[in-house]
């Protein structure tokens, strides 16, 4: 086992509920995205990595070490939990400072490093406000600040973009990218694939507690693209629309479930969405709505797992 994170046949049960089911994966250096729908097992894996949970079966290593009750390893990791709870009665400065003191830093160093970390995530102006007055996105940034303030080797971020506003997202993604550029390793979970595309090409797909694919994002994209993507088109002219779309070479099937809609299956959703407006205008079609019934990651995963 040589990666930043190594998991082999890792399983975790919560009573009769399965959290992880024989999960095997190796995460290398840089930024790795752990992508999966809600309930896939992402948070369970992270809790095993920080030593909050103990595996029922299999083996997990973080930076080559077993995380369970491993106190020295804690110095080398920074963790941003999924939940937004913080000690709301503290200011952001006090929050980060307190945790840095628990990391063993002297008071003066903790104060300096807390200010630096809060500046990095764009919270300098609000640093002296109680955390209970923070928006969800601001809390995400405060959580990120406490995770990286002590200079860890690896950041474990559980849905760090969840609830973040557009400005917050920019700060968070920029901070993560900078941390990785400076030699840090990042393991970041999300259930939205496009969120992670901006900062890394290394992803691991997890579904029902199992790792189902890993590697380069484009390879996984290609894998996903091999499976037809369904688009439901609301139109009073389903027959005319179907005739117009049948000429697209990536469209593999067209169904008419009702009199005012049709479902198109395409192997190239990007191309489909790009070409559709032109076809609609050219053929003067009355298209009233588009929705992708399987555009959720859950549907993609169902394709991948057959």
């Amino acid at each position, binding site marked *: 086992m040589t990666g930043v994170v190594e998991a082999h046949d890792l399983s975790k049960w919560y009573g009769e509920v399965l959290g992880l089911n024989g999960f095997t994966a190796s995460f290398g250096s840089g930024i790795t995205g752990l992508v999966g729908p809600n309930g896939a097992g992402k948070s369970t894996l992270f*809790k095993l990595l*920080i030593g*909050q*949970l103990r595996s029922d079966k299999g083996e997990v290593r973080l930076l080559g070490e077993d995380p369970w009750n491993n106190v020295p390893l*804690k110095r080398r990791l920074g*963790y941003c*939990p999924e939940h937004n709870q*913080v000690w709301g009665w503290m200011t952001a400065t006090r929050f980060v400072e*307190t945790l840095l003191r628990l990391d063993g830093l002297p008071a003066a160093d903790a104060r300096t490093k807390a200010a630096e970390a809060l500046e990095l995530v764009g919270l300098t102006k609000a640093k002296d406000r109680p955390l209970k007055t923070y928006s969800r996105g601001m809390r995400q940034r405060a959580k990120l600040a406490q995770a990286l303030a002590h200079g860890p080797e690896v950041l474990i971020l559980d849905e760090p973009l969840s609830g973040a506003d557009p400005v917050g997202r920019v700060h968070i993604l920029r901070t993560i990218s900078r941390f990785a550029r400076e030699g840090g390793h990042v393991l970041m979970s999300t259930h939205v694939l496009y969120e992670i595309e901006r900062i890394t090409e290394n992803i691991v797909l997890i579904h029902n507690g199992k790792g189902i694919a890993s590697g380069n994002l484009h390879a996984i994209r290609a894998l996903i693209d091999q499976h037809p993507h369904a688009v439901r088109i609301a139109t009073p002219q389903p027959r005319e629309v179907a005739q117009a779309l049948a000429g697209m070479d990536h469209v593999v099937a067209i169904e008419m479930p009702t009199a005012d809609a049709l479902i198109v299956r395409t192997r190239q959703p990007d191309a489909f969405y790009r070409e559709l407006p032109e076809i609609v205008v050219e053929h003067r079609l009355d298209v009233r709505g588009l929705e992708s019934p399987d555009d959720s990651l859950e549907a993609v995963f169902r394709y991948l797992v057959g």
Partner: protein
Amino acid sequence: MTALTVRYLLTTRRVIAMALFAAVPLLLAGSLALARVPTFDILLFQVLMVPLFLQVVLIFVTLVNAAPLIREEIEDNTLPYLLTRPIGKPAIVAWKYAGYLVAVLVLLVPPLVLAYGVTEAYGGLALGTDSDVLAGFLVATVLGSAAYGALFLFISVVLRKPLAVGLLVGFVWESIVGSIPGNVPKFSVIYYLRSILKGMIDVGPLSGFPTDVSAGVAAGVLVGLSVAFLVAAMAVFQRNEFRQKA
């Protein structure tokens, strides 16, 4: 960790209710003095403080402050912040307990001392006149806070609903155990607190308290109980996994 706990227990809004409750002895002594009750003296002070302070205020304040020490971090999903620091889990428990002890004594001791002062001043006596009473109650407060705190902390590490069980132990078991014959009362904290008061105070309502345990032995037992419950809480916490609430 200790500073974090002290700050939490003494600076959040909950401290107002706790301080008011802890101030009950002072409020009572002040009321008796203001009402110019003729029988208000150090004996009446003891008669009131044994059931009111030892059996209600002390238990309530220790329960409400000790039970959430760890449990609230689990329930509020803030425990990961502590678990991802280079501190062993047993140390988290120990430092939190130390913070609890500081905070609880800050809450309990000043009103008790002031209530004693009001009583002596009302009788026109010098503050040191009944120093045995003050010393007895201070020792009982410190050791009672330590023992009840460790007990409630242990309960909170083991059980998901520590307040309910703590209330049962604190207000039911500790109240009725004195009425049970034989050695059963020795399985309570209150028995040793009363033994301390009996041994340390020359004249008081507990002079006739049936105990074969000296104040010194009682103090030793309470220290031993505190250490035992604290170590047990540390051991359980070290072994436990912690699942966040959904």
